[in-house]
């Protein structure tokens, strides 16, 4: 089987597969029609394996696992759940499994999950049984770090595992900030210096920021990019201060958005999808004119990529998990909208075409091969 775009929606899971010339994409599904699918992620260590984060409007959150590239799925025996609250403690209950990340290449059965409310969970058996990462979930600062959430709830997302070191982890919390662990999740520290938090009374707060999406370059793991509620940032470790690279975006466009994705090989290249963050935060395409912006110099400059996208009267919203690249030399870029469209941008987004429409509200678009 070749390439697949997995599309997680508010009403089920879909798959898109291209023909040899990538002109036509065949839609398969829905699977789990009516289920809320937040994330579908392939295991790069075992490509037949996929995990899916799901719930329904009535039922509690869970994880499904496929060992045959998504043909069939089986529910986890023990989905992510917080430990039982002691007398007098605030009782936390997982409302959504929001994010899935495969563990380090050396830990073949390890997976991480991020939830709402903000919780971090680990599976050591390929996603069958999940345990809380106590170092974060029981951290004495957790309640302050994750003090409030988005209108759709607080989310722990963008779980990153350093490809050089399985104990080096990053997570992001909306709202709360970016946090880093150097010891496999036992201890955590905020990593938000340099990030704006215009909504906070203290502009230099150590946490309380709203990272929308955090990515680490797989071949240059010291390079991090972040699309934040307040701008686009870059961080080159071991430095601790984020640089706002969104200031190089056109002033009329600004640097607000949900997703950010990196080129699979070139750490200088990244794509964002700006949205309207003015007044009441419409979170739609700016002026009804959708565009992707690409940097090829680490954020020093950005180029608008809108050929083939609607030229006007198109108010698209693209959520943080709903943009990805493939792994071609000149990667295709893909995004899904809350209006149920998936767009493909060939050759790094130089030319866009609509590959499917009329799907339910899209939460995630992920690439599998």
């Amino acid at each position, binding site marked *: 089987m070749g390439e697949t775009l997995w599309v997680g929606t508010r009403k089920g899971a879909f798959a898109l597969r291209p023909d040899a010339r990538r002109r036509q994409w065949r839609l398969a599904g829905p699977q789990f029609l009516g289920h809320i699918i937040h994330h579908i992620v392939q295991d790069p260590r075992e490509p037949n394996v996929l995990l899916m984060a799901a719930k329904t409007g*009535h039922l*509690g959150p869970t994880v499904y696992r496929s060992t045959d590239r998504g043909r069939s799925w089986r529910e986890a025996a023990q989905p992510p759940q917080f430990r039982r609250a002691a007398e007098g403690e605030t009782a936390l*209950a997982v409302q959504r499994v929001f994010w899935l990340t495969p563990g380090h290449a050396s830990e073949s059965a390890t997976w991480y999950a991020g939830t709402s409310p903000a919780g971090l969970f680990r599976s050591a058996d390929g996603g069958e049984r999940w345990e809380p990462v106590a170092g974060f979930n029981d951290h004495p600062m957790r309640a302050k770090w994750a003090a409030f959430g988005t209108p759709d709830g607080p989310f722990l997302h963008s779980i990153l595992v350093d490809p050089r070191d399985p104990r080096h982890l990053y997570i992001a919390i909306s709202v709360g900030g970016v946090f880093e662990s150097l010891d496999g999740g036992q201890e955590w520290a905020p990593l938000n210096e340099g990030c704006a938090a215009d909504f906070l009374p203290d502009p230099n707060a150590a946490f309380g920021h709203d990272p929308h999406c955090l990515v680490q370059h797989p071949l240059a793991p010291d390079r991090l990019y972040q699309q934040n509620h307040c701008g686009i940032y870059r961080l080159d470790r071991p430095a601790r201060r984020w640089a706002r690279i969104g200031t190089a975006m056109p002033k009329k466009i600004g640097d607000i958005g949900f997703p950010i994705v990196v080129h699979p090989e070139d750490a200088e290249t990244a794509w964002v999808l700006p949205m309207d963050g003015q007044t009441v935060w419409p979170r739609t395409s700016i002026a009804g004119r959708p565009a992707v912006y690409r940097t090829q110099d680490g954020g020093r400059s950005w180029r608008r990529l809108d050929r083939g996208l609607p030229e006007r009267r198109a108010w698209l919203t693209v959520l943080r998990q709903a943009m990805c690249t493939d792994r071609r030399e000149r990667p295709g870029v893909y995004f899904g909208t809350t209006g149920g469209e998936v767009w493909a941008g060939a050759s790094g987004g130089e030319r866009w075409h609509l590959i499917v429409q009329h799907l339910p509200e899209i939460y995630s678009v992920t690439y599998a091969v």
Partner: protein
Amino acid sequence: MNASPTARACTVRIASPLRSYTGGAAKVAADGATLAEVLADLDRRFPGIRFRMIDEQDAIRPHIRLYVETREVKSLSEAVGARETVHVICALSGG
């Protein structure tokens, strides 16, 4: 019914969103003197079904309602009599 009733068995009526766990059955048997015991037995017979209804702090999920006969139940310690019927209701509104 796809499970054999015993002397302590009650009947559990399963709402359609949960029937993927019961092989499509709308009515199943479960043992237990309290709702907690009935749900534990139900989960033994149909693994995973309880967590979709009851969270990890033993709270009934917001869009689930449980009745014993016609009594709405808020606590899992509620007694369930033999031959009584537990109703699992899924209440959802909006799109």
